[in-house]
């Protein structure tokens, strides 16, 4: 076990990939620790993004089209937009918080870990909740 953990902190691309998946697993398991809480949060997210979808549907039912875009085309575009955003946000959200960490002086904490810092940042706040938006 010790050898396996030590091997994760060695340099090299293969080790970086292993480290990424190891941290990702821990991050996901932490967030899924309370399944009921996860499901209710998922409901909140779906309601929130469903609100945007409903608003577009209301608008386009009234007006019929935006320029040459029909209602179904606009709603499909909105769905694809949410999907792309969610896929990106799943992995990129932790990096968005970097400015806050720099301001608060917390960026040094990352440097103290004996592993690849980027992978640590990228996986520490990996958001499992973004999967709800895929739906």
């Amino acid at each position, binding site marked *: 076990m010790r050898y396996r953990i030590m091997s994760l902190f060695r340099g090299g691309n293969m080790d970086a990939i292993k480290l990424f998946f190891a941290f990702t697993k821990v991050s996901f398991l932490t967030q899924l620790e309370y399944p009921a809480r996860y499901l209710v949060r998922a409901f*909140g*997210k779906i309601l929130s993004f469903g609100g945007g979808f409903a608003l577009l549907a209301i608008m386009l039912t009234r007006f019929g089209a*935006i320029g040459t875009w029909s209602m179904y085309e606009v709603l499909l575009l909105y769905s694809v937009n949410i999907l792309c955003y969610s896929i990106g946000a799943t992995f990129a959200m932790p990096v968005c918080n970097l400015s806050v960490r720099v301001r608060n002086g917390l960026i040094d904490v990352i440097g103290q870990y004996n592993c690849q810092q980027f992978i640590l940042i990228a996986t520490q706040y990996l958001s499992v909740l973004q999967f709800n938006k895929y739906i």
Partner: protein
Amino acid sequence: MMYRSEFFLNIIGTLLFIYVQISIWRALLPSYATDAIVGSGQMVTFVIVSYLLRQASRTYFTRAFETKINHGDISIDLIRPISLKFMMFAEQLSENLSMILFACIPAAIISGFVWGIELVVGIPNLLLFGLSVLLAITLQFYIEYIAGMCVFWTRDSVYTSQALGGLILIFSGSTVPLWFYPDWLNIVGLFLPFRLMAFEPIRIFMGHADLSGAIEIIAHQALWIVGLYVLERLVWREIQNNVFIQGG
């Protein structure tokens, strides 16, 4: 003004947001029937005033409650010689005011020059609009505060704020005016306070409500605030009986 780049980026962001909204409405309205309730110029006014109102009444109470409860800071807040509610209201109001003064108003002035704001009402309506805005902000603060207090039981602010955000988005009429909603959804909205937070005050500003109509809107807002105040007191009493402090 500590971060100047953020200040300028806020103005640019606001301008872009207003531009996108105006472009969408300009694309939509010409295709609309001739008996249109509003013209393109009035929609520009709607977009700009709606944006200002949203910025003036935005809150982060649910997230603030979650942080306070999970870190145990709530125990300190509860023994302060000032009401937690008024402290949070004042903090949020000052933050919103700085955002309004240094980002939104400059952007609104630029937008007004570029796209034009139609001001068709007199001084009495403007005064009533000001009063209505104050009540709308109070109303939004109370709703968000009560939703925030639910974190005492749920320990999680994400779904509370997002579910509430979804309801406000649909029923407040700040993004899509309620004129364009189907009748059945408008009837549902009549029984909820969300339309009084944005749509109705903007109606006063745009002259779509006469003096008696404006007074009626203000009376509705005041009634809802009284109702929410009573609800808030009841929830607060329940919390005080069952509060559980962790962390610290």
